[in-house]
């Protein structure tokens, strides 16, 4: 028996490296990203001038009032958006998950359940397939400028995302308690409450809180197309070339995201 003088896995690693370069280099050309442009003297001066207008941050009482109300708007959009998204996601997840399928338990096919499952999965895909920014543009035309459009856009997109992930969490949990209950004649919803949720609830809560944190950020982005909150205020300040205001808004936004992060970390610790 002869052991090779060289590492037999080296060839595989070399191949992976060559493939990675072959894929990334052409894509870099397509993306037209040239870091050198960033450090061009003229561009640096423009950037400096732009950032210079950010100082000092705006602190007049009038503006701070607007800022507070926009912050509240952003929080409201994210929270109500997630709440509505859950209303959409929970029934869709329950219809599309295989964990509560009695047919999977005893191998007897129930065609109606299968058809319903496929429809629910398709609907979920459509809901999250269109980005929330596009929905926001649509809803601004319906509800007019303001938070309502942001709420509707979040509810739809995040409803689809939550439904998909909820259904995956339910399928990747320990199913033995649920199976035992179904095998003892329990209904699907009762088996959900007594077998599946006790096993999966911490992951479900943790993911929902994480999504809420994402929704805070998303609601700011949607503000730029007129869907209310900090984003809309930022858009106005930028258009009026008021760097100080933009700076205050950015600082508020940063604090908000940090607070959301801390709150979601705390909530996730509580459910463990």
């Amino acid at each position, binding site marked *: 028996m002869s052991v090779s003088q060289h590492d037999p896995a080296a060839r595989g690693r070399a191949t992976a490296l060559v493939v990675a370069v072959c894929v990334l280099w052409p894509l870099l050309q397509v993306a037209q990203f040239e870091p050198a442009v960033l450090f061009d003297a003229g561009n640096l001066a423009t950037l400096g001038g732009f950032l210079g207008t950010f100082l000092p941050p705006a602190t007049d009482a009038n503006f701070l009032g607007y800022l507070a109300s926009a912050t509240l708007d952003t929080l409201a959009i994210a929270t109500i958006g997630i709440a509505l998204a859950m209303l959409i996601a929970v029934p869709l997840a329950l219809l599309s998950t295989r964990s509560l399928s009695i047919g999977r338990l005893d191998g007897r096919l129930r065609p109606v359940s299968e058809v319903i499952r496929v429809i629910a999965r398709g609907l979920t895909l459509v809901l999250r397939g269109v980005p929330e920014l596009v929905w926001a543009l649509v809803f601004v035309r319906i509800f007019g400028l303001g938070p309502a459009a942001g709420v509707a856009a979040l509810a739809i997109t995040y409803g689809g995302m939550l439904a998909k*992930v909820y259904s995956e969490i339910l399928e990747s949990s320990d199913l033995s308690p649920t199976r035992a209950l179904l095998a003892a004649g329990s209904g699907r919803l009762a088996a959900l409450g007594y077998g599946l949720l006790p096993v999966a609830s911490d992951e479900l809560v943790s993911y929902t809180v994480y999504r809420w944190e994402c929704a805070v950020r998303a609601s700011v982005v949607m503000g730029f197309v007129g869907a209310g909150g900090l984003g809309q205020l930022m858009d106005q300040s930028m258009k009026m070339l008021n760097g100080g205001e933009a700076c205050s808004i950015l600082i508020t936004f940063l604090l908000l995201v940090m607070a959301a992060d801390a709150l979601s970390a705390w909530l996730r610790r509580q459910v463990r």
Partner: protein
Amino acid sequence: MITLAALSVAYADGRRALDDLDLSIAPGERVALIGPSGAGKTTLLRVIGASLRPTAGQLQLDGVDPWALGSGPLQALRARIGKMHQAPPIPPRQRVITAVLAGRLGQWPLWRAVASLVYPLDIAGTRAVLEPLGLAERLFDRCDQLSGGQLQRVALARLFYQKPEIVLADEPVSALDPALARSVAVALNEDAKRRDVTLIASLHAVDLALSEFSRVIGLREGRIVFDRPAAQVLTADIDALYAGASHAAAHDTPDQHVPSAKPRLTRCA
């Protein structure tokens, strides 16, 4: 009355877990299933519990073929059968009271199941089944605070709370120490005697099978090797049943599949 006629269960590769079984078990009988690993004990219990459909032959429970029933009546039939497992299928974060109440989910309307999650509606009834098992003071504790033996007794309490007409126990005492194993086997038998219901349990502890049950069935490679009243089982029967059986363990099929965690969608706009 449980009747199996020429019943077989075959795997996809044609290997037979149960091979042409004829068997009838009268109400009130307390049957111990013994035999080497891979003999088909678990499969037989799943078939009788109307969880696994036989590939050939027929199962009748009180004259009814479960697989001829519609979904609703089949579900109602399953609610009359109690099952116990080697590893109690109870969520770790569930409280003892909820785990016990889950025994009646097959009999309760949905509103009652949901209401009991908000506030347990039958605290007295739960306490009454936990009391004789020495667990009454753990009523509101979480199941992950219990020892393995206590958890198996919670599963027993759930079974007693369900009050099933047929009790199927798949190696209920295999994970317990000898003293606890005996006490659980005794409790199962006494409940069956007192309520005059059928008990079928698979066991690895032959001494318990002989001392506590009324009838013993020896199963090997999907066939019945012997089937006698417990008092008439001979040492030679037991020796023949397990002789040279170690290779059969390789046929053991894991029935619990724990899926691995999947990657999550974490797109964040």
